[in-house]
């Protein structure tokens, strides 16, 4: 009896909460729905093309890398992400350091994630849904379905940039933000090197040289 009553209460509670929300959502703006759809399409297309390029055995390593790089740079706002990742150190870096950082960051990301996707073995990217975060940002929810083990939650954060192009600005794996993780890591390297951005650049250079050899 008690269990039943708890159940009823549990079922009723979200309905009560949802009621006002439903009324507000009853008139969804057509434009935002369309934008959500294009966000969804962008992620879906990117996923397909990336797997296609990296699983294609006819391509040489160099060609794969080139294609992947093109995909990343056309779909991600790499400048914005790079700047976020450098965080407060962006301010004290000079123009030359900034440019070199963005360049190295780009190579670092491509090397790292190309390997991750390159070890692709039967996983499937399943796009679930898109929703607006605010007037210019969208979240696309997706899942990586694995042959063994539970699915991995993968969320994409997209934003309309100044030129009104939709770009990916962050990926969240099981709600862990990749941009934030890189930012924490990079700022730690900078503080380990006495707060100098050059320390991070040096570390990135040697890391990339080591990984691409």
């Amino acid at each position, binding site marked *: 009896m008690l269990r039943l009553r708890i159940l009823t209460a549990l079922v009723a509670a979200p309905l009560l909460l949802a009621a006002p929300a439903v009324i507000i959502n009853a008139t969804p703006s057509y434009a935002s729905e369309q934008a959500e759809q294009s966000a969804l399409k962008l992620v879906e297309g990117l996923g397909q093309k990336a797997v296609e390029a990296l699983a294609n055995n006819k391509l040489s390593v160099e060609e794969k890398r080139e294609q992947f790089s093109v995909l990343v740079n056309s779909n991600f706002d790499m400048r*914005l992400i790079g*700047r976020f990742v450098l965080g407060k150190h*962006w301010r004290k870096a000079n123009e030359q350091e900034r440019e070199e950082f963005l360049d190295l960051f780009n190579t670092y990301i491509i090397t790292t994630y190309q390997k991750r996707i390159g070890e692709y073995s039967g996983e499937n990217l399943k796009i679930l849904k898109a929703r607006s975060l605010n007037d210019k940002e969208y979240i696309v929810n997706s899942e990586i379905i694995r042959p063994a083990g539970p699915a991995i939650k993968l969320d994409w*954060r997209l934003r309309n940039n100044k030129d009104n192009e939709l770009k990916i600005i962050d990926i969240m794996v099981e*709600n862990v933000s990749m941009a934030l*993780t890189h*930012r924490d890591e*990079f700022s*730690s390297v900078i*503080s380990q090197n006495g707060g100098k951005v050059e320390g991070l650049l040096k570390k990135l250079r040697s890391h990339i040289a080591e990984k691409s050899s």
Partner: protein
Amino acid sequence: MISLKFKSKLLNGCFAIALAGLLGACATPPGENTAGGMNAEVNDPLEPMNRYFHDVNFALDELALKPVSHIYRDALPEGVKNSVSNFLTNLSQPIYFLNNVAQGDLDGAGDNMGAFFTNTVLGFGGLFDVAQLDTDEEDLGQTFAVWGIGEGPYLVLPVLGPNTTREAVGMVGEHFIDPANLVVRNNDMENFPLVRAGVTAVDFRSRSLDALDEIEKNSIDFYAAIRSLYRQNRKNLILDGEAENAPLPDISFEQENDKPTLKQVSLLFESDETTEKNSAAAKN
């Protein structure tokens, strides 16, 4: 008798940790702008000691836990491994239940109770997950977070790995209130907590072999990467995976080109507080 001894040992350990925390806090020079300032921002005043234990832990891992987990993962059939996971989860349902009640999450608590009784009776003592309720992991640290206690400095414990002060205290406290431990204590099975901890470690490690290798290979500061992942994951657990309520990192500066980004930084690091607020809002 032995359990009493173990208790006092644990308590001593607890005091030692608290003391180390205090000493560390005193030892950090205030207002230093380079390395010290950075440590304060990521709330890691004990960073040198933490880095040391991080290295120790991964050396131990390389020697013992990783090889065992590799064998465990590759030699045992999927069904057996799933049953081990299910059994461990079922054993933890009572403490999840208590924590969910303490957090005011009656929905979650109901699931814990349902899963525990269904799986214990119909799932042969928890070996099979018949209930399929997909319960979240709950611990005392998360309960403290819901109660509004801050996470405190980051802390890497020998053998036990990444923690924050809040989580470490929660872990010790939980040892005493866990119904599973109470039952075995009354039945003179002193080794049970150790065996359980060992099996839990192997179970967890065998499922994170590839992921952790990947992070180690690709990171330029493994310690900082783990610290960031640990903190983000904890926040996620406190919110019970309700990503829609989770504060996203503030990535906003494209208009102002070279203005200080102070606001973003503070937003980013105060998000623990925001997390709790959102968590409370989600429950109402």
